[in-house]
């Protein structure tokens, strides 16, 4: 079938056995690729009894049918069970690695087992070689990349973990290419638990395309959609994702000091404008991306990529810090050690609030920029105070008797938007299958940016419907796999059309939404079987009871229960949030 290499390899790192997994047409039709097929393979190969750090826990790397074909298609998706949340978890990354993996002849790779000694896996045209990585164990991601590139092929794309993944920091990330991160859910720690340091991909194969001429013409059309959209055509290229600092702060939902306030008075110091003026070297872009939201930056001491919006928040407003240099250098350390910046900053903020209340042994103060880099390094190495911080906010707050101070959902630390300022976002956080995440349904688009369509952010009416729709469409796009920023500019009918032109299939927008619905329900089914229920679709008490005192979201709390009931009903889930037999049957998931 066009769009596919028709090869998914399962590798058992305990005994180096390799087995080709056949991907049936029905799996492709029902789950498309990327996240969808990854989730399907994961649920086939795993069970709720297998814990995240068990050798049997599959760690799956997937490309999609569009990988390497159109704009933003260098992406890949990693799927496993998260050690941070215990949910099924997928996380994706841009750059080139997805495309290189496919060029090497593979749609996906599945790792089970645990290597006796550290290894890395070299993937070239149709072959997979497991190599010793003892000499690079303990190295950071940049050093790892440089050593392997020299050993194997400077043109290869490398995905690896740093010290955080090796040390099983519960929110360790995988890093690939130029500081691109598979950030959320601690999948870097799963990789570390398997003694798998890196994947290296390079090849010469090309993805077959069903209608190459039509696709070529359609690409120009897609580029126009992206250029003409105010978010993808103007805001993101101009200032990167940090363009959101001003906007979110003005909406009174820029979480400050562990979500105690929604306005950060010193936001200007960490804004997109400030990044452009003070540390920006040049814009950077993923494979064939016309947006180029990336920022190559430089401080007095170092250079690297970022920080992105989520990071300037996590190490900035969340901690009461407005020192851009400190934020940037902490971000560089996260890139090097392989740490999710959202979880790291959120957890440090939780520790600061505990400390402020005299409940934490280490005196970590709001606004203490001088200690930021040190704290992040300690997290990566799991040393000193870093050992506790590396567990994430939920476990940390619980240990010190104040679970309500952890700003998380299902154990995943919340990102840079206070849900009291946008009811749909609040529901999206609560019902996200991988925990507190803004990307399962990016409601900031309609509720704050007015894109692709504007919604009243304070109203709960209709939000259950829109959130579930966004979750489904996002699951589809994650399965193609294209960058989610395209959703601002490209409608679901046109996403389906790209798939059709590449694979020769005949999908409509309706089919695409249904594929997304199926993926979302399969993830939910796994979580339910793993013991998750309605009580886990909850937000921290702060958002439900404490009104924001200042800013344009003042006097607001989240009205979750009402939306949640409506959401379950629309989803065809019972009162505990479990998909009913009828719903599963309708989606071929029985």
């Amino acid at each position: 079938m066009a769009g596919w290499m028709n090869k998914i390899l399962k590798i058992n790192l305990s005994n180096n056995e390799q087995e080709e997994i056949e991907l049936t047409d029905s799996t492709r039709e029902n789950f498309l690729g990327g996240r969808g097929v990854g989730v399907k393979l994961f649920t086939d190969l795993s069970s709720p009894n297998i814990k995240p750090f068990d050798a049997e826990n599959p760690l799956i790397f997937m490309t999609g049918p569009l990988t390497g074909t159109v704009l933003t298609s260098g992406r890949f998706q990693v799927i496993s069970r998260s050690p941070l949340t215990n949910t099924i978890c997928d996380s994706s990354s841009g750059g080139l690695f997805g495309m290189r993996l496919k060029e090497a002849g593979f749609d996906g790779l599945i790792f089970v087992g645990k290597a006796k000694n550290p290894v890395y896996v070299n993937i070239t045209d149709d072959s997979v070689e497991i190599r010793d990585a003892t000499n690079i164990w303990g190295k950071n991601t940049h050093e790892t990349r440089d050593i392997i590139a020299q050993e194997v092929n400077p043109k290869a794309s490398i995905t690896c973990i740093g010290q955080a993944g090796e040390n099983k920091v519960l929110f360790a990330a995988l890093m690939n290419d130029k500081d691109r991160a598979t950030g959320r859910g601690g999948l870097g720690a799963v990789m570390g638990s398997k003694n798998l340091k890196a994947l290296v991909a390079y090849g010469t194969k090309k993805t077959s395309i069903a209608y190459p001429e039509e696709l070529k013409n359609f690409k120009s059309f897609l580029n126009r959609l992206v250029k003409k959209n105010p978010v993808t055509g103007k805001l993101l290229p101009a200032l990167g994702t940090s363009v959101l600092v001003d906007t979110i702060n003005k909406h009174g939902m820029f979480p400050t000091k562990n979500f105690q306030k929604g306005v950060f008075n010193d936001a200007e110091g960490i804004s997109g404008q400030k990044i452009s003026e003070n540390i920006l070297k040049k814009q950077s872009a993923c494979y064939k991306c016309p947006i180029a939201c990336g920022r190559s930056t430089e401080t007095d001491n170092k250079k690297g990529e970022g920080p992105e919006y989520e990071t300037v928040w996590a190490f900035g407003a969340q901690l009461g810090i407005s020192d851009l240099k400190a934020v940037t250098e902490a971000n560089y350390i996260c890139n090097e050690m392989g740490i999710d910046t959202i979880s790291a900053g959120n957890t440090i903020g939780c520790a600061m609030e505990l400390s402020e209340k005299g409940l934490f042994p280490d005196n970590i103060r709001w606004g203490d920029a001088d200690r930021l880099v040190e704290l992040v390094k300690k997290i990566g190495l799991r040393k000193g105070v870093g050992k506790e911080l590396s567990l994430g906010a939920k476990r940390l707050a619980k240990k010190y008797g104040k679970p309500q101070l952890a700003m998380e959902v299902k154990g995943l630390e919340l990102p840079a938007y206070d849900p009291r300022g946008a009811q749909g976002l609040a529901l999206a956080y609560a019902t996200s299958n991988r925990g507190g995440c803004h990307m399962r349904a990016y409601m900031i688009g309609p509720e704050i940016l007015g894109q692709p369509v504007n919604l009243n952010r304070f109203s709960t009416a209709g939000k259950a419907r829109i959130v579930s729709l966004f979750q489904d469409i996002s699951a589809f796009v994650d399965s193609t796999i294209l960058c989610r920023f395209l959703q601002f500019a490209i409608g679901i009918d046109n996403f389906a059309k790209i798939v059709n032109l590449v694979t020769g299939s005949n999908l409509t927008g309706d089919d695409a939404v249904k594929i997304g619905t199926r993926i979302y329900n399969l993830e939910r089914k796994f979580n339910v079987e793993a013991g998750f229920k309605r009580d886990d679709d909850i937000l921290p008490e702060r958002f439900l009871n404490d009104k924001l005192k200042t800013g344009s979201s003042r006097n607001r709390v989240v009205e979750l229960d009402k939306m949640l009931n409506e959401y379950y009903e629309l989803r065809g889930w019972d009162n505990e949030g479990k998909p009913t037999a009828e719903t599963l049957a309708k989606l071929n998931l029985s």
Partner: protein
Amino acid sequence: MITRKELAKMIDHTELKASSGKKKIKKLCEDAVNFGFYSVCINSCHTKFASDILKNTNVEVCVVAGFPLGANKTEVKAAEAKKAVEDGAGEIDMVINNGLLREGDYEYVERDIRKVVEASYPAHVKVILENCYLTNEQIVKGCEISVSAGAKFVKTSTGFGAFGALPEHVKLMRETVGANIGVKAAGGIKNFKDTWRLIKAGANRIGASAGVSILEGLSLYKYAEDAWLEPEIPCHICPARHVSITSVPKSIFKYYKKRCSNCKYKNKYNKFYE
């Protein structure tokens, strides 16, 4: 629900910025053809250039006259319109003399429009009222004068005023001109929801530079029509929310402030009292 093709045929794809040169106009024309828009709406200096590009296509050239203030002498407006039609314009969007309409010099305003209508023949003329500087009564009067002077459309805004098209004004304009005269909503229309609300209020033509995004938004709508159309807090789409003492004439500010004080939403959402 409207189809993508039908929606595209209601849109005047617009580029009226002072900073836009030929490159932008060329792209605008290409987009209009590729996306199936009704017309391109441009400044008069680009008329010939755009007409040449759009020759043998279904896309009209719509040209603004007396834009954006409408305060030029009648002869200048008429000459601008006449030249645009000679250069290939199929529609003329002229700006009304808003200041004289506000002062009640209806004779001048009607003559101003009539001269442009005559100069533009056989092209249709749309009259831009710039509603943000008018009371509802003045909007009604502006519509009546426009129709009586031979205009085929009335249009809400230039996009350069204090605010653009709002459903309340479109509804009022439609009620005033009836079914046989067009109502064009323009100014600040950024996405499908804005557009759909204005169409529901009575607009049959949309002027927007965001036409491409508007069309893409339609594909989301069909999955959750009711949810998207959930009523706004009324003040969000009330003209009163968009006025300030510095952006509109004092009399208009007072007009809306007075209206707000009598509004049933006063204690709930009211802009001036919240």
